[in-house]
């Protein structure tokens, strides 16, 4: 969000440009009541100072500022989802290479992901490269993959289901060999 560009709206709501969405809501509610309620004890004594149009002006500006700021916050919230949609267009199955492709397109660094998910980098690499033999037993790998998916805001259930299908197939093949 371009907070500096929105400064005039923060100003109208008498907020600093780093205000949270809650602060924006609270300020809007309060100011709307102050300048919109003819019985307000705070603006009542100002009858001589204020003109009706002036009053309506303030309310209009409040409304505009609030609408613009809320829209900016909504856009921020929607942004990761829109990005993802673009990235996922050619993905059918969430296997190791697919996950790697998605992660790279999202420009997420493996080391950052390791820090955030508390999964060792080597495990993350093994997931992407499908080094199934190097990965821990099913229940742990399942947890790692779920974590991986969550970190990239992917559909966790589907990713786990797709990935573990491959993992189990490998497990089964191995058992058959022995």
């Amino acid at each position, binding site marked *: 969000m371009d907070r500096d560009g929105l400064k005039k709206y923060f100003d109208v709501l008498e907020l600093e440009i780093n205000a949270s969405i809650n*602060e924006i*809501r609270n300020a809007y509610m309060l*100011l709307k009541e102050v300048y919109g309620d003819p019985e307000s004890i705070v603006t009542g*004594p100002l009858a001589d100072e204020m003109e009706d149009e002036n009053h309506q002006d303030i309310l209009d500006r409040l409304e505009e500022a609030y609408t613009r700021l809320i829209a900016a916050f909504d856009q921020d919230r929607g942004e990761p989802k829109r990005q993802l949609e673009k990235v996922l267009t050619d993905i059918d199955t969430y296997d190791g290479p697919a996950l790697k492709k998605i992660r790279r397109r999202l420009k997420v660094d493996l080391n950052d992901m390791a820090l955030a998910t508390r999964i060792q980098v080597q495990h993350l690499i093994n997931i992407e490269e499908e080094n199934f033999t190097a990965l821990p037993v099913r229940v742990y790998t399942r947890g790692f993959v779920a974590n991986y998916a969550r970190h990239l805001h992917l559909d966790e259930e589907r990713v786990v289901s797709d990935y573990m299908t491959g993992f189990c197939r490998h497990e089964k093949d191995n058992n058959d060999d022995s």
Partner: protein
Amino acid sequence: MESLKGIWAVGGGKGGVGKSFIVSTIGTVLARRGNRVLLVDADLGGATLHHFLGMKRSVVSLSDFFDRGIDLKDLVSETSLPGLDFIRGHKSSLGSENVNYAQKNKFLRHLKQLAAEYLVLVDLGAGSSHNIIDTFLTADLMALVIVPEIIAVENMYSFLKNALFRKLVAGLGEIGRQHVLIDTWKRRHENGIKGFKGLISRMSNRDDEIGERIRREIENFRIHLIVNQARNNQEAMVGNAVKSVCLKYFGINTLYSGYVEHDEFISRCVNRRELYLESYPASRCAREIERLTDNLLTNRQISIIS
């Protein structure tokens, strides 16, 4: 820790909003933290501060300053709290509001002398008379107390406008141009100036030494707002609302420093001659006064409560 020095003035325009309570409790908090605090009851018409300090009688008072010319420093008496001293207000208020110019200047001079040794907290009287406003403007920290009632709010606006106007007149007076401001205001109808903010913006937008001076005076006009006797969050938010109005309608940037809840035990303490903070140290009010004091010291503010 170095003891704080200077003058803090607490006014409000309306009587009975709790200025004396606020002054006595803030003074108590600051004294307990190791400062040498002097409370001065400058409410010449209706001195009440002594009641909040649990003091029945004191030998000397401001009457001795105004009627007998005794130095302010010789009128200081101790309270029951170490570090908290006190100058009592006028005892017999006959004609006491008619303090003349020379007396006022001497009073302010003596206050400043005491502020070299003490943190002086001045409890101002009601109204917006010149004597009260001049004392207010002398202070290093200026605070206004309101209660969430329309009359208190209205009186506070009036006090605020009068105080700023007087400060601007005095500021321009130093460069001999005060008549420009006074004339502009008198002829506001011909000049198309609506209200106080119109005057302020007209004057501060001037592209000369007057405009420059006005801008500087306004920047130095830092007012702390205190809401007393709030019964709920909505009443506490009157402080946020008033802050907004002061900015939008008068062009004055105020700081909303804190609120204190309504507490009926306060008047009980007064009647029993007890110090509220000594009797109810764990009350919500006591915590709010601590926070208010901290905010006054650091310029922090109360944000809007949801």
